[in-house]
């Protein structure tokens, strides 16, 4: 049986909708992982031990177990304790927290790399520790971390395919459904791959633009 891509245009709409959901989940989880990463990093470095300890355990669990399992746990497991999340929300939370842990590692290193002179410059003006952290140190740490964090965002985009298993109708699941109707896996998986590639190019362009914009302010 040869390849026949003429079946693909018929499912163009559902693939496009799937791509839309992939973008939505990536953007939402990306934002959660960014701010979550900052919060975790600050707690890990400066938090009271009563906060630091659970965050460390949490980070250890999220780094040491499969993302797929984490998604199952959040979507199916939490129902048992009365938390019934919509699939999209469960996907965003799972992906977001998972990558927040990785971003936190980057941000911690980047906070520690901020020059001591920056603290002295801020403290001599009369800024408190907290103000110095918020207004001087973290903004600089975040700028320094945008290139490596961009790599995490690209990984997040690709791993968003995993939320198909909890029923979010994103790109991979849209392709699978088209396949179940047409029995044309090669064509549709390839079409989905092409869509991921295009989204990835767009994401990289956004990251490059960000890097250029912050170049002068570093």
């Amino acid at each position: 049986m040869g390849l026949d891509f003429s079946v693909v245009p018929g499912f163009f709409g559902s693939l496009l909708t799937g791509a839309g959901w992939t973008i939505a989940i990536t953007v939402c989880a990306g934002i959660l992982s960014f701010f979550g990463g900052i919060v975790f990093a600050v707690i890990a470095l400066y938090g009271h031990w009563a906060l630091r300890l659970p965050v460390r355990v949490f980070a250890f669990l999220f780094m040491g177990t499969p993302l797929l399992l984490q998604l199952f746990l959040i979507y199916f497991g939490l129902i048992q304790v009365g938390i019934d999340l919509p699939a999209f929300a469960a996907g965003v939370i799972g992906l977001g927290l998972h990558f927040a842990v990785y971003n936190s590692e980057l941000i911690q290193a980047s906070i520690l790399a901020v020059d001591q002179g920056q603290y002295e410059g801020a403290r001599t003006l009369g800024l408190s520790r907290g103000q110095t952290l918020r207004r001087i140190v973290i903004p600089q740490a975040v700028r320094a971390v945008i290139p490596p964090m961009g790599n995490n965002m690209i990984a997040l985009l690709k791993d968003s395919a995993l939320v198909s298993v909890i029923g979010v109708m994103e790109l991979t699941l849209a392709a699978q459904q088209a396949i179940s109707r047409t029995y044309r896996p090669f064509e549709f998986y390839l079409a989905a791959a092409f869509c991921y590639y295009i989204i990835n190019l767009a994401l990289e362009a956004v990251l490059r633009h960000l890097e250029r914009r912050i170049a002068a302010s570093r």
Partner: protein
Amino acid sequence: MLDHTAAQAFVTIKNAAKSYGTLEVLKNINLSVERGQIVAIIGPSGSGKSTLLRAINELDPLTSGEVWLEGVQINRKLPPRQYEAHVNQVRQDIGMVFQHFNLFPHLTVRGNITLAPRMLKGLSEAQANALAVEQLAKVGLSDKIDEYPSRLSGGQKQRVAIARALAMKPKVMLFDEATSALDPELVEEVNLVMKQLAEEHMTMIIVTHEMDFAASVCDRVLFMDQGVVVEEGPPSVMFQNPTQERTRNFLRKHLSR
């Protein structure tokens, strides 16, 4: 808080000592600076002059001794929380300029100057802006207000750092080797700004390696070595006719004349 017996001078340092473990970096130092006075601290590296300067605003707290500014003890012994609040408050009155500028690279020149006045003194954006314009004009960098520090030369960075400190309307300015990191041709523009401040009778304590500058601007010169003030006096005496052998040795190596 006010103790008039202890606060005769504008800035008073009494029996200042500091040690790291067994290493004594400051030994029983006393210093009084009157309002509007300009004092230079000179001495070989490792003599403790920067440590003394940094003790004045609690960047490097003393092991023992007292620092007073206008009747307020800077290094009061307080419980941690109150100490933090107290130090943050008094530091607003003490401008400091560093060897490596310590400008905030993620903020424009305007942002660098307006940050602290807006956050700590509650100035509106317009008020803070006017302040930035005014201070930048003073250091001759009005056209750089929207640049990021990375676009400035070392001399320009240091002038912005001075403008940033002045925007807090400090009672005293501390200069910690403000020109040591600059290319020789950029030193003069910073010195000019400092001279201008001197003419406006800003109280200044200046740690410097530049003897010519100290001689031409300062009212008093302290020579420090191995954690003690070896000798002090007006520049005419200190540079022409010092009494101590250690001072003479140091100046022989550092005076161009």
